[in-house]
């Protein structure tokens, strides 16, 4: 699960990670009072959307007066912000974070992520703050330090000191930096994060070590034990279709193509998208109905898929293992009767009770196109959209 920058900073502050003082604003009035409340003579106006690259899209502005703060806020708030990660239509900005400006002496990168190969959390540090870490890793790998953290000990003093030193933090501030990094690791671990990226982490002219920016994502499987994080979910940042699908317990991702896919199992769902592409068309979505799809879920799946007006045909590819094909077939027939779609539906059923499943489809009177194999199904659906 993704959270906003201001939410990540709230979580970090609660774990004793230092951040600049800031106020979340939903209107220009709130921006005005935030500027007064924060005081000083320099502020940063930051668009709060989930996508990264906000700076590149003009969503982060440094301002020197209340008037400038208001005019920057007016430019950004309620407008779409286009960044390298949003797609061309951008994402509407509904919240701003107004922060006090800080005097920056140096910008550093600090990131924590799960290293799958090592099966541990890895701390990544670089003196090249403010840059994309993938670029640093590719262009100047010697400027990136990775430290794998033993879950039994957590981030040790020695490792934290080595990382801080590597990143060029002055000796006088090393103790502070060690405290910062250990608090960051604890915030990551205790909240079941999957990513915590502080880019940049800055050393200020006041001798502080603070998280100027913060990006965190969390392990969906562990949210059940973190209700305070679950409440940070922002439905405005998710597509209507994805929300509807997740409510029905479906895993759905919208794509750009014209063939809707309804499949059981993530691997087979990806493989089905791949074969559509291989035969020259593009999938309109990824949709995994899971191992035990119910009639209600199949109805929800069709509803979500067909709301996408790009969809010109649907490919249903089910390999019934535990899920019996006759149950799936009944679900399909009920769903299609209820929804009544115009687009061609190609159904490939295989697995347990497949003969009964096929009979149910044939006797339904619905104009379904049945396919015997995955290959046959892919060819038929491609043919259907080409007319």
């Amino acid at each position, binding site marked *: 699960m993704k959270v906003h920058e201001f939410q990540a900073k709230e979580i970090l502050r609660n774990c004793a990670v230092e951040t600049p003082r800031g106020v979340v604003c939903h209107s220009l009035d709130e921006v005005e009072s935030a500027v007064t409340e924060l005081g000083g003579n320099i502020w940063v106006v930051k668009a709060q959307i989930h996508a990264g690259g906000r700076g590149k899209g003009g969503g982060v502005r440094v301002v020197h007066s209340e008037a400038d703060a208001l005019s920057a806020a007016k430019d950004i708030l309620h407008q779409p912000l286009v960044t390298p*990660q949003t797609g061309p239509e951008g994402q509407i900005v509904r919240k701003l974070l107004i922060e006090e400006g800080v005097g920056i002496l140096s910008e550093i990168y600090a990131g924590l992520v*799960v290293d*799958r*190969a090592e*099966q*541990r*959390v890895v701390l990544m540090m670089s003196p090249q703050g403010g840059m994309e*870490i*993938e670029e640093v890793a590719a262009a100047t790998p010697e400027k990136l330090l990775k430290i794998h953290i*033993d*879950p*039994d000990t957590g981030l040790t003093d020695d490792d934290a000191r080595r990382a801080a030193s590597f990143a060029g933090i002055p000796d006088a501030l090393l103790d502070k930096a060690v405290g910062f990094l250990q608090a960051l690791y604890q915030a990551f*671990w205790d909240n*079941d994060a*999957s990513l915590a990226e502080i880019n940049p982490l800055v050393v200020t002219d006041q001798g502080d070590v603070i998280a100027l920016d913060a990006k965190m994502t969390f*392990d*969906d*499987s*562990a949210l*059940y*034990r973190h209700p305070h994080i679950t409440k940070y979910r922002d439905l405005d940042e998710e597509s209507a279709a994805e929300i509807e699908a997740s409510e029905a317990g479906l*895993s759905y*991702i919208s*794509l750009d193509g014209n063939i809707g896919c309804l*499949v*059981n*199992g*993530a*691997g*087979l*769902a*990806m*493989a*089905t*998208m*791949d*074969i*559509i*592409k*291989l035969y020259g068309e*593009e*999938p309109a979505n*990824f949709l*995994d109905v899971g*191992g035990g799809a119910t009639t209600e879920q199949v109805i929800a799946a069709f509803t979500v898929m067909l709301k996408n007006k790009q969809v010109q045909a649907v490919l249903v590819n089910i*390999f*019934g*293992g*535990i899920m019996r094909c006759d149950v799936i077939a009944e679900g399909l027939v009920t769903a299609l009767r209820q929804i009544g779609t115009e687009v061609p539906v190609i159904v490939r059923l*295989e*697995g*347990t009770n497949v003969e009964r499943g096929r009979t149910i489809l044939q006797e339904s009177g619905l104009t379904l196109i049945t396919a015997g*194999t*995955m*290959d046959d199904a*892919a060819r038929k659906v491609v043919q259907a959209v080409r007319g």
Partner: protein
Amino acid sequence: MSILINRHTRVITQGMTGKTGLFHTENCRAYANGEAAFVAGVTPGKGGQEIDGIPVFDTVAEAKQETGATVSVIYVPPPFAAAAIDEAVAAELDLVICITEGVPVTDMIRTRRKMESSKTILIGPNCPGVITPEEIKIGIMPGYIHKKGSIGVVSRSGTLTYEVVDQLTKLGIGQSTCVGIGGDPVNGTKHLDTVKWFNEDPETEAIVLCGEIGGTDEEDCGRWIAENSVKPVAAFIAGATAPPGKRMGHAGAIIAGGKGTAEEKISVLRECGVHVTENPAGIGELVKSLIN
């Protein structure tokens, strides 16, 4: 021959008194030598009961001692799954197969740390299990699509494995053992471990490797294959059309920071001498061409 499990394997079901555990234990018992193979259940607090003639114990250690079982399969709910693995490891079982989907990643990091000094092999979590056709099935796969033979199958995904096995069986090609290693980012056995075992198994003639986007396990496996004399390996990588940054169902199936794309995996595997098809419907035919 086969790898990991055969007709002599004796199995404990952890979480057997739950709905899922009961259902699948019944199915596994109905397959080949299952009746003799599934000898014990474990559910804390329910020891002393008997279900369909299978004794239930409070702990894995007790079940092992009383029945001589050396393998366990886990169906307990996600919040307790890692602890169930820990218990099986502490009881020094040879093999633990965790079917449970949705185990928190930090739980698995802790569990894998504990396993560093252990000889127990873990398959999963979030996997369909392991089957040696016509001998024993431990997991949730449909048994009847399998056929005894000489192809080793290893895959991260459930239904995609069934698809591959079905293609093989319909071409008359049987399997030695099929291993579903699961789609989670932090898990037990990797593709590479399984390929090594298949390579040493005299009955396995060729190997099918089904991978998917995310991580670098397939590449690591490919590099080992390139450096060692290995039986023919056929591969398919799911997710060529997956967009970056989106989790494709499995927690592990995500292209992050430009890494873990299907394109990169396919190119590395091909350089390493692995036979890769980009058509998921053509895996069976590819295998057929390799063994003839």
